[in-house]
């Protein structure tokens, strides 16, 4: 079948469907046989499925380099052929999709392995071992969908993957759907999943409009066909497409104003936060813009809007991250902020810089999230240890939040491995030389400085805040003294969790080598796909400024949180200094409340009105009860009384009565006496004879 049709002997392009098939096979195995398999077997199957997809991705990248990066399409099956619309299940292997495949399957595999250890404990802390298998089924489904997203050859196939990952995101955010993040019975997690899904619906609506407009304007959804016609299309149409697409990007990649779902998405298990809500799925929007580079390059107005949206998001989310106490919430807002960097980059036309940051961010943010998961589990273990040490006193004790940084402190003593891993991730995110984040972020800042000074200012402040909130986190979590008893008993995580982290840490450290100034491997690689991808000159000015800003931010964070460590119960020192501003940061600038007041409450009012007034009062009470019911009742009464009883029954009863009367009189003749019959016979004979005689 697919293997035997190899067009280029020695190359592996025809293997590309297997990047989807392997995860699907993995999930089917776990779905069908998982009930009887041990946790280790389930985890191995899932990780293997993802790992094989990674192997295929590597082979594809190798094949691609062998053909000098020329895009290849692999036809799998016919899909939709209606009139001029010709859509097939066609995979596209080019340098851009290959990068995404490698990131998704590579980071995905590491997170799968990590999740074996993480979920093993998580399902036990939450007392539902049966969900272990479900988790890996969802995770494999996610990999498959993400692969469809990045390897599709048309917008519609991309959209299939786009929706598929949205579904997986929903399923995994609400994975512990019957409890909140602290395992209390509640619908909080399910609500978070719903929120993500609905916010994404808004974005997907925009994306769909973009697809429809594309089809209307170009008569096709296939990438090459669309891009080849861009020159002839009116600018207004392309602007419309790109801006509609931006709504989709804002939804999926958590940009202003649709970002609100991502912080809540942290309700999902930490590997999910790392894989879906940091490393891969949320970067789909960035990929989409990079994929549509010819469209965006054609309209500068749209580019500017995209860049501004990204930059505003980067700064806005960074300010919120400063005021958060939950270790994962800080990372969530950091992710939004970094996604803002990427969107700003691809918006500015710096597609390579955006993709570069996407890749390095996938490494270090996955590392940070997974380390945070390790910390949370470490705290859980400490909590568990204490609960058993002090005897069981469930119920009346206050619920302990293992993710709250105010409960931590001095964890580097108890969890040294995690500490060092976290440090690597932090330095990479803060953009300290020579970590990966330094190179990728500088490329974005450089581009911004050259072409969009306004964007540069916003991003530079965001970068400063990034270093600050990461410094704050480090000082609060790992230094100072333990603020709770639990932190004193925190335990290090097992190797199944720390080893994948080490790999990610190595990647975070060395990821910058992908696109070192002067060599520009990634730029050379991507310019086969993205026309006009140019490598900016490395500027010591920009790099120096951003490094100085980052170091300054870390120094300030040390002044505030490191020098005089936070004591238990002490409020954040920033609270005194910034006052209401910090309250705003702490409460996410009341955006959720604003949305609630502006959209959700209005929507509820509308729904209430529709339900109460329109449906119940008008539709049910008036139309159904009064009009239809009354009229029908009247009609039936008329049909029943005058028509049925009065007329039809009268005929039937009258006939019966007449028959009865007739028979009553006739029965008197039939008296049973033979002699009277004989008399009748005689009379009859006499009558007949008389008639015959006298006629």
């Amino acid at each position: 079948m697919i293997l035997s049709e190899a067009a280029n002997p020695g190359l592996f392009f025809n293997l590309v469907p297997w990047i989807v098939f392997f995860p699907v096979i993995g999930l089917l195995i776990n779905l069908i046989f998982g009930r009887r398999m041990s946790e280790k077997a389930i985890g191995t199957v899932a990780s293997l499925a993802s790992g094989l997809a990674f192997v295929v991705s590597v082979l594809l990248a190798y094949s691609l380099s062998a053909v000098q990066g020329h895009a290849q399409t692999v036809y799998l099956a016919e899909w939709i052929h209606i009139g001029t619309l010709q859509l097939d299940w066609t995979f596209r292997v080019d340098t851009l999709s290959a990068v995404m495949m490698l990131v998704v399957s590579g980071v995905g595999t590491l997170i799968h392995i990590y999740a074996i250890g993480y979920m093993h404990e998580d399902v036990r802390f939450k007392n539902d071992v049966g969900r272990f298998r479900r988790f890996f089924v969802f995770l494999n489904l996610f990999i498959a969908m993400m692969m469809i997203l990045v390897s599709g050859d048309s917008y519609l196939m991309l959209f299939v993957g786009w929706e598929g990952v949205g579904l997986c995101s929903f399923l995994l955010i609400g994975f512990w759907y019957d409890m909140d993040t602290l395992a209390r019975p509640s619908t909080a997690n399910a609500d978070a999943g719903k929120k993500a899904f609905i916010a994404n619906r808004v974005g997907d609506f925009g994306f769909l409009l973009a697809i429809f407009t594309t089809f209307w304007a170009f008569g096709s959804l296939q990438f090459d066909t669309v891009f080849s016609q861009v020159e002839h299309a009116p600018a207004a149409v392309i602007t419309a497409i790109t801006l509609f697409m931006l709504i989709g990007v804002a939804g999926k990649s958590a940009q202003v104003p649709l970002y609100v779902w991502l912080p809540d998405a942290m309700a999902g298990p930490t590997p999910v936060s790392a894989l879906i809500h940091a490393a891969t799925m949320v970067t789909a929007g960035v990929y989409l813009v990079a994929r549509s580079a010819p469209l965006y390059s054609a309209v500068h107005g749209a580019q500017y809007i995209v860049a501004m949206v990204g930059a505003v998001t980067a700064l806005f989310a960074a300010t919120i991250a400063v005021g958060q106490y939950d270790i994962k919430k800080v990372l969530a807002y950091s992710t939004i902020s970094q996604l803002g960097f990427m969107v700003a980059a691809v918006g500015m036309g710096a597609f390579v810089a955006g993709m570069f940051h996407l890749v390095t961010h996938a490494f270090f943010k996955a590392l940070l999230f997974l380390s945070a998961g390790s910390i949370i589990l470490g705290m859980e273990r400490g909590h568990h240890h204490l609960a058993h040490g002090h005897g069981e006193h469930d119920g009346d004790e206050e619920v302990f939040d293992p993710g709250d940084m105010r409960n931590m402190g001095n964890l580097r003593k108890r969890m040294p491995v995690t500490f060092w891993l976290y440090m690597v991730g932090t330095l990479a995110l803060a953009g300290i030389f020579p970590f990966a984040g330094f190179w990728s972020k500088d490329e974005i800042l450089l581009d911004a400085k050259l072409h969009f000074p306004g964007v540069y200012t916003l991003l530079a402040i965001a970068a400063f805040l990034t270093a600050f909130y990461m410094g704050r986190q480090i000082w609060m979590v790992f230094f100072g003294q333990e603020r709770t008893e639990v932190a004193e008993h925190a335990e290090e995580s097992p190797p199944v969790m720390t080893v994948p982290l080490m790999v990610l840490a190595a990647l975070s450290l060395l990821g910058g080598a992908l696109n070192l100034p002067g060599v520009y491997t990634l730029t050379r690689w991507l310019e086969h796909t993205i026309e006009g991808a140019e490598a900016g000159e490395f500027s010591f000015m920009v790099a120096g400024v951003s490094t100085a800003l980052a170091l300054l931010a870390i120094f300030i964070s040390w002044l505030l949180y490191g020098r005089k460590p936070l004591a238990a119960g002490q409020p954040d020192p920033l609270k005194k200094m910034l006052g209401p501003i910090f309250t705003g940061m702490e409460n996410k600038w009341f955006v959720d409340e604003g949305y609630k007041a502006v959209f959700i409450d209005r929507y509820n009012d509308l729904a209430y009105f529709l339900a109460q007034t329109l449906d119940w009062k008008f539709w049910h009470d008036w139309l159904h009860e009064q009009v239809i019911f009354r009229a029908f009742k009247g009609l039936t009464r008329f049909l029943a009384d005058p028509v049925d009883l009065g007329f039809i029954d009268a005929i039937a009863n009258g006939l019966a009565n007449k028959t009865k009367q007739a028979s009553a009189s006739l029965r008197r003749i039939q008296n049973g006496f033979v002699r009277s019959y004989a008399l009748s016979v005689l009379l009859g004979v006499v009558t007949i004879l008389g008639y015959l005689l006298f006629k």
Partner: protein
Amino acid sequence: MVPVSYYLTLSAVLFTIGALGVLIRRNALIIFMSVELMLNAANVAFVAFASVYEVLSGQIFVFFVMTVAAAEVAVGLALIVAIFRTKHSIDVDQLNNLKG
């Protein structure tokens, strides 16, 4: 030579007696006998007309009637015996089960 009207008168009288007997009497045997009487009244009339018109078929018909009467007696008497056995009576006024 006795005129034929005498025979016919006898026949009519016999028939009337038979008919009245059937209509009036309650005893099944008597009714039966009255029926025989009417049959024989008819026979008398047949024979009288046969001798007047000198046609033999009238006399032949009498034989048929007598044969039928004999058969009727056999069946009728059997019926009466059967009725008597079940009802212990041959009063026809008590045999009125078949009334409307």
